[in-house]
């Protein structure tokens, strides 16, 4: 857009946007500040902005109140299973739909894509009983499984593969490469941006997912962080600095990854908006 801002106006805009930006991120800032406060400071009216004596006591308390490390490990396992599975399954199917030609492909694609239009609540109850039949209720695999497959990811990567040239496949075939070999050796290496976008989407969805884990987990054995920190507020003798510490620990990993991969992330989201 218009890039001919004068220096002073640029600075004025910067200050205004900074003030609003701080306002937008205030819940986040307040979460960190509150988590560093002592219990006695929480009930001060009006509240002090900075903690008088910043300390990590509330973090230590949360780790004891819920099996935080265990929930954390579960969340990482579930997220890794889902992310690896989605990247493998979605990219393979997306490639076949985008670059290969065979009968019945379009029909199957439309049927699979129809999943996108159905609200996820519809599948909760039947899936619960499928997991029961598979003896996967209250297991980490049970939490992870439905999220290992994705119509959205398949669609996203199909759009991405469509934008790559067909010529690699033709050349690869002439050299005697199988279709899967062409996909693996010729297309995947140039698909980093598409794959990283899907990786971030899966990661975020999986880390934040709440309703399905809430239903399928009944004990700490398979519980993930979202459910774990939600349980904090039902505890006796829990204080808000401790709840804030739990929320901060559940959020920070994703924030760090986001800051590291922000460029890909923004590109990925923009892609979903443009292609509709």
């Amino acid at each position, binding site marked *: 857009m218009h890039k*001919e801002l004068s220096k002073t106006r640029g600075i004025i805009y910067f200050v205004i946007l900074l003030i609003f*930006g701080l306002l937008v991120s*205030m819940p986040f800032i307040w979460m960190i500040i509150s988590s560093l406060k002592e219990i006695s400071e929480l009930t001060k009216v009006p509240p002090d902005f900075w903690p008088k004596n910043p300390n990590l006591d509330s973090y230590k308390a949360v780790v004891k109140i819920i099996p935080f490390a265990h929930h954390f490990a579960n969340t990482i396992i579930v997220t890794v299973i889902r992310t690896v599975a989605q990247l493998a399954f979605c990219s393979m199917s997306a490639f076949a739909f985008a670059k290969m*030609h065979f009968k019945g492909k379009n029909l199957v694609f439309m049927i699979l894509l129809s999943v996108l239009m159905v609200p996820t*609540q519809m599948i909760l*109850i039947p899936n619960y009983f499928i997991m029961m039949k598979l003896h996967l209720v209250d297991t980490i695999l049970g939490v992870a499984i439905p999220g290992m497959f994705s119509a959205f990811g398949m669609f996203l990567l199909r759009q991405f593969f469509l934008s790559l040239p067909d010529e690699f496949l033709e050349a690869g075939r002439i050299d005697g490469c199988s279709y899967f070999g062409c996909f693996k050796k010729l297309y995947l290496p140039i698909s980093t941006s598409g794959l990283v976008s899907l990786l971030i989407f899966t990661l975020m969805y999986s880390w934040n997912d709440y309703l399905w884990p809430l239903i399928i987990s009944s004990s700490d054995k398979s519980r993930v962080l979202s459910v774990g920190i939600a349980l904090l507020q039902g505890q006796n003798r829990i204080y808000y600095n401790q709840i804030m510490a*739990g929320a901060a620990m559940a959020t920070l990993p994703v924030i760090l990854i986001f*800051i590291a991969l922000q460029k890909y992330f923004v590109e990925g*989201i*923009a892609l979903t908006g443009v292609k509709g």
Partner: protein
Amino acid sequence: MKNKKISTFFGKEGTQGWLMILPNALGLLIFYLIPIVCSVVLAFYKWDGLSKLKYVGFANFQTLLTDQTFIYSLRNTLYYSLMVVPAIIILVLIFGVALANDGIFGVEKLRTLYFLPLMTMPVAATLVWKWLLNRDYGLLNNFLSIFNIPSVSWISDPNFVLISVAMIGIWTAVAYDLIIVISGIKGISPVYYEAAKIDGATKTRQFFSITLPLLTPTLFFIVITQLIGCFQVFDSVSIILGGDAPPAALKNATTTVVLSIYQNGFSYFKMGYASSQSFVLFLIILIITAAQFKLQKKWVHYA
């Protein structure tokens, strides 16, 4: 496409193609497509999850019509959507235009501040907001008291609780759409603005005559996806009502459709009845989305 020979079902290309599709297709079939069909069928049965299924015809749907909780949940979900979607559209337009301007010093870093809510787990975000909105010690009421505005029970007053949930919904959802709008604005060709400047159009005029019309496809996408998201709101509501057993008035003012489905299915074990609710939710979303695609001709400009 080129005139390429389409290989048959199980030619070399076909066999390898099906094999590559198989894992995802099988997963989607077992854990999405079959459950969807089961859910529709289940809506016509009475079932507690343990005993034998009992066919009841349309009885579940008849119960829905007189179920006060479900009617409240529909009303709340509707009000919630009417607060969240317009607010998001206005916010992304204002901040989108400002943050798309690469001429602003340090705009890249500023954007990160606005994107932060996106990264916060909805459950964690709601817990934080519950603290911010605390009647006595919350930051918001203390801030408002500077202007002599009396304390509001944001979380426990039935008149305010849905507004609070909507605030949380806006905060958690707006960043995603902001990213889309910023990239949409940056995608508008500078030629338009140069021509407008030659014609002496003001910035306001440029916004309404160039930016806004060219953004309508993006806004259409946002309205569609946000409305679907709003109709499925669950996390924030369940956390707001969580903790101690909430009084009935508060529950009636907050319960949303998905919360009602969750409670019927997994607290009262009325699986058939919950399925009928989710079927109705599906139909509502389908009708609203279809209506929007019809209405888009009136306001969406495809360049």
